[in-house]
């Protein structure tokens, strides 16, 4: 036993390339953990399917009487469902970060000569992959139940870029939340809040159809330009009547601002919180 306990490997010197390798290891860890939680993982995969069927076949008939999307409600609701699923995904990310912070493993990571940014980067990339998977499911099920986008390859590329930017912004925001609350139970609350926000946007019905008091909120909250950018790129027109380019600029500014603030805040919180007790 004693021979095996006397390791021959000295702790290696830190090099810039190690930061990349550390981040790779953390990403692999995040992805592994994602599939090891069968409950959360199957919920994340079932959600897009169930919601799509619910919104198209249960609510779709009545909703579309007001929305008037050509070819059925599915041609309105896809971007909204993508955003709703991303809200759920952000909740998962908040819980993952909070769980990490409440376990001893972050302390161990911190006491090792590794890039501390790699720990959060691992969470964010795993979150991006999980959410893109859910998005792909929304798109696939949507196409199967009659969604007919008119976008060309450029339009698709733009819509996907919008989704990636939105998911990244949401993931960093979720990481902040997870770092602040620290207990997985409290982080679960984030799922609820983030899943509620899309209902007060143009996700499921145009803002113009809402009560007068809600209209300005729904029309101007950040989720709406994100949804309308996707809708405009895929379907050729937005539900607000604004040009796609206008919505895209707004969405890009919102996402960039949230990304910049949330990413710096999360990094600061990570250093601060792990350095404290």
């Amino acid at each position, binding site marked *: *036993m*004693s021979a*095996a*306990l*006397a*390791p*021959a*490997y*000295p*702790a*290696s*010197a*830190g090099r810039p390339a*190690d930061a990349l*390798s*550390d981040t790779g*290891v953390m990403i*692999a*860890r995040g992805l*592994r*953990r994602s599939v*090891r*939680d069968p409950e959360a993982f199957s919920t994340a995969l079932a959600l897009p399917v169930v919601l799509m069927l619910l919104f198209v076949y249960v609510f779709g008939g009545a909703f579309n009487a007001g929305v008037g999307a050509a070819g059925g409600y599915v041609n309105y609701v896809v971007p909204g469902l993508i955003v709703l699923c991303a809200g759920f995904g952000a909740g998962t990310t908040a819980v993952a970060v909070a769980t990490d912070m409440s*376990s*001893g*493993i972050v*302390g*161990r*990571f*911190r*006491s*090792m*000569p*590794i890039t501390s940014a790699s720990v959060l980067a691992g969470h964010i990339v795993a979150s991006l992959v999980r959410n893109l998977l859910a998005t792909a499911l929304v798109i696939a099920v949507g196409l199967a139940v009659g969604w007919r986008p008119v976008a060309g390859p450029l339009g698709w590329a733009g819509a996907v870029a919008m989704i990636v930017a939105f998911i990244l912004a949401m993931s960093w925001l979720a990481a902040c939340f997870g770092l602040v609350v620290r207990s997985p139970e409290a982080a679960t609350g984030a799922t609820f809040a983030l899943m509620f926000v899309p209902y007060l946007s143009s996700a499921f019905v145009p803002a113009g159809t809402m009560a007068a008091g809600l209209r300005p909120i729904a029309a101007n909250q950040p989720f709406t330009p994100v949804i309308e950018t996707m809708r405009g790129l895929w379907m050729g027109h937005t539900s607000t009547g604004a040009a796609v380019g206008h919505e895209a600029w707004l969405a890009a500014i919102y996402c960039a601002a949230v990304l910049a603030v949330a990413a710096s805040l999360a990094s600061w919180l990570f250093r601060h919180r*792990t*350095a*404290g*007790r």
Partner: protein
Amino acid sequence: MTYTVKAAGLRKAFRGKTVLDGVDLAVPAGHIAALLGPNGAGKTTLIRILATLLRPDAGTATVAGHDLLADPVGVRRSISLTGQYAAVDDMLTGEENLRMMARLRHLPARAARGRAMELLAAFELADARRRLVKTYSGGMRRRLDLAVSLIARPELLVLDEPTTGLDPRSREQLWSAVKGLAADGVTVLLTTQYLAEAEQLADQVAVLHQGRIVAEGTAGQLKSGLGADSLDEVFLALTASAGDGAGGAADARDAVTRRTPEVTR
């Protein structure tokens, strides 16, 4: 004599409450040093400061020759920390935990795998290597935790209450692993609430009470210093709270500091 840990005047307060009130500590290379103290004595805070997880408010320390404040990365390269709660990833298997940590120590993939297998065998976890850690028993988690600490040979192994909650057999296994390491020249700093553990393992015992080292020496020196039959008596005498009247703790402390000047050198 070379010291792996040399700390002087370490102070730390949380929100105005003093947790460490000027701690001096010197651990010679290759020694097993035990920090003994009741709950809330500041053991974990001291450990966290020495592991660069907390900044002291005042005081200086070097770990393996690296200054704590000037060269924290140097300190991190020289130490391995096993915290109070097993710092392993529940959602990964035992093997994945070890391979991940080996990769984070910048071993190439193949070497990481080899090292993981060696350690799994050494800590009797080979059969359980493909099981998720959340299915492990407390003893298995602790052994995995220690195995992770040993992926790269540290100059200083820091163990915060390593055997809390372990059954006797797992405790014996862990003790023998720690002794084996010390025999190989690794310096060990551990905290414990168990006097038997300090007596069994440690070359040097430091009793921490209310943020100060109130006595330091071998278990034998401490016992003879107080004329006590067991380390339990020493511990109780030294850590009796001021409210217990008659200044018993202070007397005991005086007795030790009077009689063991050679001990603290």
